[in-house]
């Protein structure tokens, strides 16, 4: 067991280990703090896409990579193209794609 741990540590190297441990610790701290402060956030994490609104899915999925773009940025026809692009690039489920697109089109 000790050998395995030692081999893994050697494999990921010291900076890698520091980064992994720091990220895990920070995530845990921020997650705990956020959940304690906001019950909504904690509740939101256990819902599936079918139970979430287009606005919620839009906020959750887009922000994972970049700032949220306003629905007024594009026309409904343009959102069709953008969302197809994002469905492929960001691996959106059909449910997420459909709901987010409907929300964006309604907001243009």
């Amino acid at each position, binding site marked *: 067991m000790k050998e395995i741990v030692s081999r893994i540590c050697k494999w990921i190297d010291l*900076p*890698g280990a520091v980064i992994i441990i*720091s990220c895990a610790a920070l995530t845990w701290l921020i997650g705990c*703090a956020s959940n304690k*402060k906001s019950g909504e956030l904690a509740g939101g994490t256990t819902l599936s896409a079918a139970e979430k609104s287009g606005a919620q899915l839009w906020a959750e999925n887009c922000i994972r*990579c970049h700032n949220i773009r306003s629905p007024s940025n594009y026309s409904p026809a343009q959102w069709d*193209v953008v969302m197809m692009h994002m469905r492929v690039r960001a*691996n959106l489920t059909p449910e997420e794609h459909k709901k987010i697109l409907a929300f964006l089109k309604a907001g243009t």
Partner: protein
Amino acid sequence: MVTVALLAIPYTMVAQDVATSPPPDYVSRAEYDKLRAEHEAMKQELEALKTAVHAMANGTAPVAPAEGPAAKTAASEGKQVVTSVPSQAATDELRQEVDTLKTQVKETFPGSTKFLVAGYGTAGFTARSGEDPFFDASFNALFLWKLSDRLFFEGEMELEFEDNATTINLEVAQASYLLNDYMTIGVGRFLNPMDFFVERQHMNWVNKLPDKPLAVYDGLFPESQLGAQLRGVIPIGPTKLEYVGFVANAPGLITAPEDFSELGMLDFPNTGNFGGHVAVGGHLGFIPIPQLEVGYGIQRSKVGPRDQAVVNVLQSVDFNYVSDSALLKGLINLRAQWGWSHVGDFVYDPDGSQGFGPLEFNNNRNGGYAQLSYRPTHIDNDIIKNFEGVFRYDRLNQLHTPVGFDEQRWTLGLNYWLTPSTVIKAAYEFDDKNGGARDQDAFMMQVAVGF
């Protein structure tokens, strides 16, 4: 007593008025009958109009409305009554106008395929110690076609102006087809799916700092692949599992470089696929909660001349946590990625003709970054909430390779977001190299616009 009596007089008078006169909303029988007659007349008039309009719409001959008692009553009261419908000529003219308008509206339709030009542009300034400071600019145009509900094409072209020259690179040219809800196939040149930073974060309006991290960009992994990929996502309750698998041209192996430090490195834009090897790889990403994504990517191939090929393995782990925290009054963005590159034992310059061989070594390098940013989006101040602080640590370990040094950097940045996709970035980078190489601290600025 007298005063009270005087004050009571007006109220007594008002009470008497109310008792003797009818209330203001009172309608007499005569008025009611008159209104009722008018109402009936209008109903009949409306029915006649409806019949006429219906006849016009159907293109049938107009029928003169019957001049019933309602019309006569209305006419006798001086009201204008429609007693005839427009002529056939007027109807034809109206029809022609509608047809013209229909044609004009149809001309504005985008057609069955939908096309969009998106992308981003940047302008930057870099002052690096030991080098002349310089400005640079670049423009990435992204062409997107939605050909049908299942077929999609994207092309990305990068135009960069640096060192008095404009370079053009084809970053992406990929056709994607949605096989089903959970599976998409893509062929062409696509961003490297095993490298999370390259695929999701390298765009300048998305990347939080003016430059890009060591190792994961323009370092250990290719930026794009030339081949085919199969990708999709599987929802598992509230969680999601993303997957990508690909086959592509394998990297080339640099065996006779102009610069000795490049010996044993991989040549990524291997468009000709010299050596004839195929790389196989993929990426798995897991999203347990909406704020968190962790992933692992791998690519394996043989590299080098066909008769002396050695194994190359590229691996990457990525971690991304983004949370809009009410407690911390802002948006926390924590990202990290670490990668490994292994090239097996290879004998370089076996006959000594290049002057340094025979030299046998395996080329193992690793590196990555961790980045934390915070933007106080919940602060009720329009200026402060657009500022964003960024800290990044990045590192590339390659001391035991012909490069001969490791490098690590600490970068502090401050961004100001003009719009959600327009940012002004300023950063200072502390550079630290070992192995006798010179440290190159840098001050950088960049304006990035996504559109």
